[in-house]
């Protein structure tokens, strides 16, 4: 199959990118390993945002530009609520808030815009982005806030008997990975085993057919946006716990878009794998590709990771527009 070729090319490209720094002996393997882990960590966060995105796209066909703002909004809510109550209570409140948000979005955005074309819906979520950014900062404030997850800050040294110098791992990174894995597992169970989950999958396959057998589309949308809201909370809390809650989260979370391009708009595994690829790819590029590039072109500093994901996704669109795991579509006339 011809469609395997681009995947193979991408794989080779990534493998080369991963291994090349090792082989050239530019740096210690321990350091290389740390960069890899750092990339995977960032990737987990991208995956989480992308996951919320894919869920919404599957169930309502909406390209949700606001997913990043939802993450920021959720993180702000948790951070500010946790100042007044224990963390668990703040989380519950945040879930309630995101569910309310899902209702509002369904009622005021999706329902009036049903049957509009995809680009109009994308622009509507641009409106939601604006609203959430403004609203979030109005009610929660616009400073930098902390979320204290009660995890010790000191990194742990592992593999010190394998590499010289060992590898430093942050505890919160490990916790984040565990949480992300649990979340994905729970979602998978929900989709496979529950009645609502099956209804969701039916809607994702064919809106009209699902509606015609009596699945209430509007309720499904509320549920999906709620789930995406919960995913946003998880992403926001992990992110905020690591780097502090601030406005830039909403822009960093935009990287979920190249992630879903890479993984395929409708694929949950694609969101996970895509997120990891992008996370690792941009870290590797920044650390190993950045300095020589800066030197060769006499740049005023690195920062390749700001665009690496987008350009990678754009190039990928040429070879495989439907993504690694997406379905190929045939246009009928």
């Amino acid at each position, binding site marked *: 199959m011809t469609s395997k070729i681009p995947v193979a090319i991408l794989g080779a490209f990534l493998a080369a990118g991963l291994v090349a720094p090792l082989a050239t002996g530019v740096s210690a393997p321990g350091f290389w390993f740390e960069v890899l882990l750092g990339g995977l960590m960032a990737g987990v966060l991208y995956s989480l945002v992308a996951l919320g995105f894919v869920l919404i796209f599957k169930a309502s066909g909406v390209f949700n530009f606001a997913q990043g703002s939802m993450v920021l909004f959720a993180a702000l809510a948790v951070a500010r609520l946790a100042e007044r109550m224990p963390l668990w209570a703040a989380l519950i409140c945040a879930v309630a808030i995101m569910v309310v948000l899902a209702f509002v979005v369904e009622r005021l955005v999706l329902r009036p815009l049903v049957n509009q074309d995809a680009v109009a819906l994308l622009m509507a979520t641009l409106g939601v982005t604006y609203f959430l950014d403004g*609203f979030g900062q109005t009610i929660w404030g616009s400073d930098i806030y902390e979320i204290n997850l009660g995890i010790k800050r000191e990194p742990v040294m592992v593999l010190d008997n394998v590499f010289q110098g060992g590898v430093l791992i942050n505890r919160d990174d490990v916790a984040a990975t565990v949480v992300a894995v649990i979340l994905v597992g729970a979602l998978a169970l929900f989709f496979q085993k529950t009645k609502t989950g099956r209804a969701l999958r039916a809607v994702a396959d064919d809106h009209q057919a699902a509606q015609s057998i009596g699945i209430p589309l509007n309720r499904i949308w509320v549920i999906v946006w709620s789930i995406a809201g919960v995913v946003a909370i998880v992403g926001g809390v992990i992110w905020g716990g690591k780097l502090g809650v601030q406005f830039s989260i909403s822009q960093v979370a935009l990287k979920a878009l190249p992630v879903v391009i890479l993984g395929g708009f409708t694929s949950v595994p694609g969101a996970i794998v895509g997120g990891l690829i992008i996370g690792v790819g941009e870290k590797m590029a920044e650390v190993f590709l950045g300095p020589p590039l800066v030197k060769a072109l006499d740049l005023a500093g690195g920062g390749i990771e700001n665009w690496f994901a*987008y350009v990678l996704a754009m190039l990928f669109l040429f070879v495989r527009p439907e993504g690694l795991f997406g379905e190929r579509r045939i246009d009928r006339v």
Partner: protein
Amino acid sequence: MFFRENGQFKSTYRADQQLLPILQDRVFMAGLVAFAFLVVPFVASDYLFLSLVIPFLILTLAAIGLNLLVGYCGQISIGHAAFMGVGAYAAYNLVLRLPFLNFLVVLVLAGFVAAAVGMLFGIPSLRIKGLYLGVATLAAQFFLDWVFARVKWLTNYAPSASPPPVELFGWTVDTPVRKYLFLLSVLLVFTLLAKNLVRGHIGRAWMATRDMDVAAEVIGIRPIYAKLTAFGVSSFFCGVAGALWGFVHLGAWEPLAFDLNLSLSLLFMIIIGGMGSILGAYFGAAFFVVLPILLNRIPGMLGFEMSTATASHLEVMIFGVLIVLFLALEPHGLARLWAIGKQKLRLWPFPY
């Protein structure tokens, strides 16, 4: 009603294809232009020019550019501010390195550079549609932002770009009134160009691609041609607007002057103003410029204080609500509301 248009029959296709086929419209437009050139410079204050009118004129030009791509050709771009940036940096370097060039030549060349870059980032549109393209244009935004910030040569190894004042045929464009007159002239010329394009065969190729791409191909419109020319022309407009934004409005600018926020603002303008309407770009830009000022003033007038931070958050919120409202209730924006109003007036006082 003020006028009736009955009895104005067209006997040639040329007459029927005029820009403004109705006599009264032509008179009105001529009056408006005369007012803008002859009256406004004498009555408006410097504050009004600098904080409202000048940004309005330049943003209108950029919004027309984006509208040609999004509203007419149906290709979304979330990264058009980056092409404005390309225009600004291109103009800066042209002025810096070829100081003998007339500024009008610089503007046109800057437009061409922006058009070339825009077409380069428009190439993905040939393989992908709507949503995917959004991400490709985001790539343009972030990559170009990075280039502006990191490539020292672009700013001649200075931390920011600070060009000399614009000079035209020995006439320095430095006072607010001069800036206004210069920008108004440029905008009028480009409005005319845009109007001509969208009623020519290239405009029809764009709209056909927007409305039904397969049918457009079958009737013989090459999608490559339609999409890439739309990207090119649109980026040309935005490149010129960007150069003006940097040289005339900002005066000096930091690398992030053309960031994602500006791109999103441009999108906001064409959604509110009216997609697929040149007039809509005017309305959208005006709305975008006026709303923040109103928001800053009105609470004060009503007697309660609002911090600037709150006002700016409120502004963003209102923008968001308006986008959704317009998309749901009037997807063709203020321009359509204007057309409906005009239609009602034309028939008034009769309901039909």
